[in-house]
Every structure is written in C-alpha cells, then in structure tokens.
C-alpha cells in the first residue's frame, strides 16, 4: 500500500485542468493616445523632439527619458512612416508555441529622421534574406478600419 503501491489503472493519475483569467488592458497614455488618434486619421506618424538634448521620439513622449525635460506640444511634428531595419528575426512559431504555416519576419525598425524604433512585421516571402539596413515603409489599414492600436500598421514593406 501507499508508496509501494503499483499504479495499474492508467486513468487514475489525474490531472487538474484550469483556465486562468488574466485579461490585459493597456491604455496608450496621454502621449500615446495623441499618436494613435493622429494615426487613425492620417497616414503619418507623430514624433516629438526634446528641446534640451534634441532627441526625437516616435511614438512621442511627454518627457524626455534621458534628461527628464518636459516636451511641449510645440515640439511635436509629423514624420513619414518610413524607416530602416536595425535588426530582425524569422519567427517560425506562434505565441502559443505552435508551428506557423508561413514564417513571419519580425523587425525592429528605426523610424527615419527620429532616434526611436518600432517593432513591426515585414511583408516578404524570402526567409533567408538579410534584411539589416533595408529601407521599409509602413502599410496601414484602410482609414475606416483603424482602431487606434499598433495593429493599424498591417506590415512594413521594402522600398
């Protein structure tokens, strides 16, 4: 009995299955809200420049994270949605660890004329190519379907 007992019934070692509810809610914040609301109506990004250290943020911030200087609204400007790939990876698994039918190229894109970068998906069929330093432009959803999240950028395309 007990410890020396042999398991003979394969159905008896039970598993307790459960589902944890962990909803995730992330408001864009004051600066992020302006950025996304601008993106919903226009085909450009907003960026802002720190008057002290001249660093340009895209998406914009209320404060410069380097010198803690407050960035006034007058320093905000529109920038075209183009950039350069700084680094990239080819994802062959999805977020749940399952194999993807077609791999995805995920890249960190330096937004041209700013000092910031955005994560994005590259639209391509060539998964052996080196994308480093490739020039890309953002392909946005049609204006009526935009919902004010980063998903409004459908993918990035090489130019």
């Amino acid at each position, binding site marked *: *009995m*007990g*410890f*020396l*007992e042999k*398991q003979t019934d394969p159905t*008896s*070692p*039970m*598993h*307790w*299955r*459960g*589902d*944890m*509810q*962990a*909803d*995730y*809610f*992330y*408001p*864009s914040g*004051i600066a*992020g*809200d302006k950025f*996304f*609301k601008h993106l*919903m109506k226009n085909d450009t990004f907003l960026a802002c420049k720190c008057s002290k250290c001249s660093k340009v943020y895209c998406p914009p911030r*209320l404060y410069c994270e380097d010198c803690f200087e407050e960035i006034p609204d007058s320093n905000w400007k529109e920038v075209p949605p183009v950039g350069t790939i700084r680094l990239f990876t080819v994802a062959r698994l999805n977020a*749940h660890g399952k194999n993807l039918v077609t791999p995805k190229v995920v890249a960190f894109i330096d937004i041209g004329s700013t000092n910031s970068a955005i994560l994005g998906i590259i639209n391509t069929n060539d998964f052996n190519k080196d994308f480093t330093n490739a020039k890309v432009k953002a392909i946005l959803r049609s204006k009526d379907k935009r*919902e*004010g*999240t*980063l998903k409004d950028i459908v993918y990035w395309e090489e130019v």
Partner: protein
Amino acid sequence: MVKKKEYKEWPPYAPGTHVHESDISEKKITFTWWEPEVQYSWSLGPAMSKFLMGLKEGKIYGIHCKRCKRIIVPPRMFCEYCFGPTEEWVELPDTGIIETFSISYLDPDARRIEEPILVGVVDLDGTPPHHGFMTYFGEMTKDEIKIGMRVKAVWKPENEREGSITDIKYFKPLKGGED
C-alpha cells in the same frame, strides 16, 4: 489611495488622471485589450489522485506514516517530517474542528460582496492536532463561528461530484449529541 478626481469635461486630459469605465466602453481613449489563453494542467500524482477520487465517492482518505505515527491529510507519498514513505491508506470521518477561519468580504474573483463567506482550515477527527485542509464553512453566521467549533461536512449530491475539493460544499456546525 490616489484621490479620485472628477472632471466636468472628459477629455481634456490632465497628467495622472484616472481612466473611467466610460472611456473604455465608449472608446474615448485608445488602448490594447488582450485575453491571453492561460491554461494549466496540474498533475496530481498518486496520493492526491486517490484523495480526490475518494471525495467523488464521499470518502476522505488520509495516509499513515508508521514512523511518526500520524495520519496525513491531504495524503502525500512521503512524510515531510521523516522523509520516509507513507504506508497505509485510512478512511477518515467527515467531522472535525475549526482550526482557523477568515471572514471574507471578497469573492473568489476579488469582487466585493455584502454577505461574507467563511473560509478556513478544518482539522479532521483522527488526524494529529493543527493538521488539515482549507474549506468553506456554512450554516453559521460570522458571529457564531469560533475556533475549536465541532463541524461536519456537507457533501454535494453524488451525481454532481467531480473529484474536486469542492465536492465538500462546506462544513456545518455539529450540535451536541450529533456525530
């Protein structure tokens, strides 16, 4: 607690303001909402399996450690005092005493409730002192519940039991003369 500020007009935004429920429902602000799939499967092992399958049949199983001469409930395959293997299954009565309890004004999803729920640890008869498992207490008010009170299990009907600790609905007070 941050003092909640009410604004007559919403927006304009001010730094450090709260997000109101209407901002989300009416989509006045932009946000990301994601419901991740977080499923888990906890392998119970032989001892816990037997315990939970026993609850399905309306029985509480404990296990005996011969070296420490004590009954462990919920059962384990080894004794955590002497690290020896546990030997013998024993069927325990569904009566005991309240070891400790808490009056909770929050439900399992952390929502505020008017009528408190009583949770605590029950120390079953036949087990060593200060040794038990967590359960609900019922058929008593928050003023009546006391540490050391004699209680008896109220089981779910047999067809509703699923091999879970909640197969015992709650423990009710045991009046004098009952067993």
